[in-house]
């Protein structure tokens, strides 16, 4: 269970204000919003890369609001995947387990099922620089899931991919999320993308989480003209 209460943060002049949200264990939540609405800032705050000004964050019953990023049990996949270019795929995916004290060989053994699910075994000795966008995405996902986090944060995970790869990766995201039962928050712009994976969705505008619910509910009963405009525009744009 993830419980966010009245979370506020500031980055320069921009503020994210009073975000409250509960995520059930194993839930796949998609956060929608226009560019500059504060979605990525919220993710950074949740994983500890930005300090919260106010509010609380509970992960599995632990208050981690002011905990160091490494102690939160929150995995994060940034928009550009953030793979370490000086390490091969194997050392990227074992990174977190090695940081936790396992040897590289033990970590690889432990991650076998995950690597099989994501079909990464054949890429282990490759440099991340030689991978396609979809492969990089999967490596980043495996790396973030290695420590079995209680919350997985995905920042526009398929925005850089072409159409067919995007559909394949979205399906794989859902499969892995089901298989590992990890609570997931996925940030994106696209209603279609949200529809492919979301159990529930929310809309963020100008630093405020203005509405949450089933995607169909958001579409049918938008809470404000801004939400209606966002969802309508995005639907027409077929992002």
């Amino acid at each position, binding site marked *: 269970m993830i419980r966010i209460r009245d979370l506020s943060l500031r980055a320069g002049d921009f503020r994210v204000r009073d975000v409250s949200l509960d995520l059930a264990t194993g839930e796949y939540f998609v956060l929608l919003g226009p560019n500059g609405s504060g979605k990525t800032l919220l993710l950074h705050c949740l994983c500890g*890369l930005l300090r919260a000004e106010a509010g609380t964050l509970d992960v599995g019953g632990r208050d981690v609001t002011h905990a160091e990023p490494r102690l939160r049990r929150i995995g994060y996949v940034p928009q550009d995947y953030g793979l*370490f270019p000086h390490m091969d795929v194997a050392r990227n995916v074992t990174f*977190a387990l090695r*940081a936790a004290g396992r040897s590289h060989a033990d970590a690889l053994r432990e991650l076998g099922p995950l690597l099989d699910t994501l079909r990464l075994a054949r890429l282990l000795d490759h440099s991340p620089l030689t991978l396609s966008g979809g492969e990089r995405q999967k490596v980043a996902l495996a790396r973030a899931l290695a420590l079995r986090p209680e919350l997985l944060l995905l920042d526009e995970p398929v925005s850089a991919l072409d159409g067919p790869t995007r559909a394949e990766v979205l399906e794989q995201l859902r499969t892995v999320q089901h298989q590992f039962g990890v609570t997931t928050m996925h940030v994106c712009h696209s209603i279609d993308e949200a529809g492919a994976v979301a159990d529930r969705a929310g809309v963020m505008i100008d630093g405020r989480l203005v509405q949450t619910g089933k995607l169909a509910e958001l579409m049918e009963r938008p809470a404000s003209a801004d939400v209606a405009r966002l969802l309508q525009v995005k639907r027409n744009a077929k992002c």
Partner: protein
Amino acid sequence: MPPVAGPRVHWVSVVTIAFLVVFVAGVLVLIAADLFYTSPQAMADALGSPEVRAAIRLSLITTAATLVLVVCFSIPVGYALSRYRFPGSVVVDAIIELPIVMPPVVIGVSLLVFFRTAIGQWIESVPGLQFVYTPKGIVLCQFLVSVSYAIRASKAAFDGVDRRLEDLALTLGCTHGRAFRWVALPMARNGLAAGAVMAWARAVGIFGPLMVFAGAVRMKTEVMPTTVYLELSIGRIEPALAVSMLMLAIAMAALVLIHALGQAHRWWGT
């Protein structure tokens, strides 16, 4: 980028390439003049003399110690300059780069003056910490003259490492220290190594501050540049030339290594 259509030869290319040829030819003529002035046998004899061998040995020992100190200082200082903003950082930047632009002999004078102050006298009174006119003084001079080059290279190397990757390492279970060691340091390694080589090459060649602060005592505080001066001062051009050629070879090797490190990303994929 494909070549622009039109004539390949025009007045801009002719003039700029002519200047390039003149400069490179000028340097090569100087080197050739040195090489042809003496014979290989005369150079070998000169390099075999006890004084010259002692100077080469002391140069290698002191510059090795300087290199260790330079690496120990330049990595944390370069990282701090790259990652943190603080009041007066522009002034701090200028102070760190000062030794690059100031005449090296001023460093020797400043050190000499400092070791006449109360603090300097106290340091000199600590057993094993005598600097004035000792090999330790040589290391101190070499360090102060060369460390700025390594710090500048270190800062540039860390500037080239995306800070977000270090942040990401924190979310993957790393402490700040481990994120530095596992992400920032290896990603900056080529730039750090190039800076260290540059600083070492600079340390090998310094002369002015040594004359002031460490002296030019044969077989005691004599390093390669000092040998060139001492040999020339008594009219023995062969040993001076031999040591000069050796320093030239070191400088060339250092430059080749620095360029190789600059290209290393092509081999290592970093």
